[in-house]
């Protein structure tokens, strides 16, 4: 294959280590990608189990199964586990597997740091999970950690804060690695404006992460010193202000939600052209829309705080700024639709998930716009309406695209084909149940049901029951996903997949020019010919 040049990374030129040690010391981007993806899948089930505790309790009014305090812990931990344990690591996993391959690089730029950031993630996740068993219980003040409530957390508070530090450092190291890889490791023929959109969106996401994770780390550090070292950042008695926390948090928090959606956009832009058998529509506008969204995400944070008592000028500014985001977002939805327009479409499982993403994400965007209108947000704020909003933008968007990505690339990674029948079954079960689960929450919110409560008035009973039924169908359907993935890894349908896997995929990305399964080392010599279909032209 490749010539080994002196002084070069020692792992090059031979296969993986034997046994368990392979996974602990590995610096191979594919191994690390697998570690991230497996961790994310495991945490997806942990967070899902917590969600089912929540939905079981809310199945009927009254207190059935859990104490209110534990219920609140579940709400908080579900969010933390899903955001920091499932969605973010899953995209880092995809980045590890795909970015080097997509840009014709032999590995990530900083392989050792790559390994370290993964194990730091594991440490952070273990630390935050350990709080479940502590005196006073896990954090229960919501994933937003608002003071003064969060300062009433028991022994768990410092552990949660350190966990956030670890998760933050891990994300920042991952982000630095991704930027370094994209800047310094591209094949010479892979110019910036030829990069696949997944690479573009991840690069922009990485910059977001470097800018915001430290701010979050700072905010929780202030909580820590307020609680233990007599500072008064957020304590009114000492001249502080709890609303200040909300500003700092949402300065991080709003871009954070885009950290979870921008790579989603990238994967969608990769999958849709392949199954529409057309070039991507509007490559350049996709790149600029992504950058615009990222920029705007820094100047809209107070739309989470319309009800704190801002002056009218503040409400108006944040209202209009937030609405602006709908423009680049609309450009993207338009481009995906235009890509499919008059395409020779086929509906394999990845495409089904991608189409569902376009439709259902748009619905989440619309409810976002409704809440962006400051006077109406007074009604929606902290109700189930916002719960419906962000679950539409996260579950049938980010999560669906992660599923789509798995079906799309798993044959490439393993060399085995997944069971298309089961995949479609998984899709339909998920797509139908996710709507049974979240659509009624719009009605509940409009009728006034507050979020983060274990019990509710009886007029909310019917929609809650339906929502809970949807939740259980959705949750258990994901076991089917697990089964399909394991089965594929172990040989799948037995069908041999070609290097392209999907018809004419070779035109859409470098990964499809390599053999399936992807060899342990790829692109030791950089490719010279770059596919162009993803650029929207020939």
């Amino acid at each position, binding site marked *: 294959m490749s010539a080994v040049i002196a002084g070069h990374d020692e792992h090059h030129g031979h296969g993986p280590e034997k046994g368990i040690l392979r996974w602990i010391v590995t610096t191979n981007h594919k191994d690390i990608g697998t570690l991230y993806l497996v961790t994310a899948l495991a945490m997806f089930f942990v967070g899902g189990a917590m969600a089912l505790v929540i939905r079981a309790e809310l199945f009927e009014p009254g207190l059935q199964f859990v104490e209110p305090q534990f219920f609140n812990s579940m709400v908080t931990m579900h969010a933390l586990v899903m955001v920091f344990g499932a969605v973010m690591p899953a995209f880092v996993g995809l980045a590890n597997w795909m970015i080097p391959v997509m840009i014709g690089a032999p590995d990530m730029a900083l392989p050792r740091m790559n390994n370290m950031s993964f194990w730091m993630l594991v440490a952070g996740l273990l630390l935050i999970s350990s709080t479940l068993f502590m005196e006073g219980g896990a954090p229960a003040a919501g994933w937003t950690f608002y003071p003064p409530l969060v300062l009433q957390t028991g022994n768990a508070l410092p552990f949660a804060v350190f966990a956030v530090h670890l998760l933050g450092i891990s994300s920042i190291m991952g982000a630095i690695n991704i930027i370094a890889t994209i800047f310094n490791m591209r094949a010479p023929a892979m110019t910036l404006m030829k990069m696949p959109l997944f690479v573009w969106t991840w690069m922009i996401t990485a910059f977001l992460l470097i800018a915001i994770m*430290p701010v979050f780390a700072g905010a929780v550090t*202030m909580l820590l010193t307020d609680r233990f070292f007599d500072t008064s950042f957020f304590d009114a008695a000492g*001249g502080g202000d709890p609303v200040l926390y909300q500003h700092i948090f949402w300065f991080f928090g709003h871009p954070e939600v885009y950290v979870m959606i921008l790579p989603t956009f990238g994967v969608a832009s990769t999958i849709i052209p392949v199954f529409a058998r057309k070039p991507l529509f509007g490559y350049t506008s996709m790149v600029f829309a992504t950058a615009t969204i990222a920029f705007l995400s820094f100047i809209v944070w107070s739309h989470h705080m319309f009800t704190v008592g801002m002056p009218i000028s503040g409400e108006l500014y944040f209202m209009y700024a937030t609405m602006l985001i709908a423009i680049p977002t609309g450009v993207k939805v338009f481009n995906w639709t235009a890509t499919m327009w008059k395409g020779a479409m086929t509906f394999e499982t990845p495409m089904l998930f991608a189409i569902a993403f376009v439709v259902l994400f748009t619905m989440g965007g619309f409810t976002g716009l409704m809440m962006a209108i400051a006077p109406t947000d007074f009604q929606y704020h902290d109700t189930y309406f916002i719960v419906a909003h962000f679950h539409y933008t996260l579950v049938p968007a980010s999560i669906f695209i992660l599923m789509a990505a798995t079906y799309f690339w798993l044959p490439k990674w393993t060399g085995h084909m997944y069971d298309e029948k089961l995949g479609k079954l998984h899709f339909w079960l998920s797509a139908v149940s996710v709507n049974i689960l979240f659509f009624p929450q719009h009605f509940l919110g409009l009728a006034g049901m507050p979020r983060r409560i274990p019990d509710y008035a009886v007029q909310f009973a019917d929609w809650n029951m339906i929502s809970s039924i949807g939740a259980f169908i959705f949750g258990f359907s994901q076991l089917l996903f697990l089964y399909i993935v394991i089965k594929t890894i172990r040989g799948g349908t037995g069908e041999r997949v070609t290097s392209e896997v999907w018809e004419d995929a070779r035109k859409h990305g470098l990964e499809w020019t390599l053999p399936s399964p992807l060899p342990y080392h790829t692109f030791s010599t950089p490719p010279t010919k770059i596919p162009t279909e993803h650029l929207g032209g020939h």
Partner: protein
Amino acid sequence: MTRLPEKKNRSLVIKLAAIAVGMFGFGYALVPLYDVFCQVTGINGKTDTVAAANLDYEVNKDREVTVEFITSLNKMAPMEFAAETKKLRVHPGEFHTVNFYAKNKTDKTLVAQAIPSITPGPAAEFFKKTECFCFSQQTFKPRESKTMPVRFVVNPDLPDRYKTITLSYTFFDITDKPKT
């Protein structure tokens, strides 16, 4: 091209790490920035915590503003706390005094700090206090009760759209954590 661009990586990593460290600092910088921003714009109901001096307003007899007084205790501070007047109609420019009553319900000495807040926030800069128990910490001997005056004036420049101003005080028990 199997040569890894070690040098390029190092300088890029240093730059990016510097951004991360800088953003950590930026998070902290938001704290004073926020206060400055609130002071300049007068939002957030942050009202002065030192006595206003040299106020010389012309009384506007044609206009009346309702001033309401609210009291509360933080985290069950062991006190009684109430305003003797709940509501007052005042002419802008006119000085008024309202008495507040507070009592230490314990057998120990108690140090408390009252934190004022004004609603609506943008009216805060037009509400001036020349005397207030909130300007300093209050020490209560066991079971001691105090009557404490607040002297204030509403600046006649208060925009017409404000008809009611609510002044709220929260007493915080800071016996264990007295600030110097």
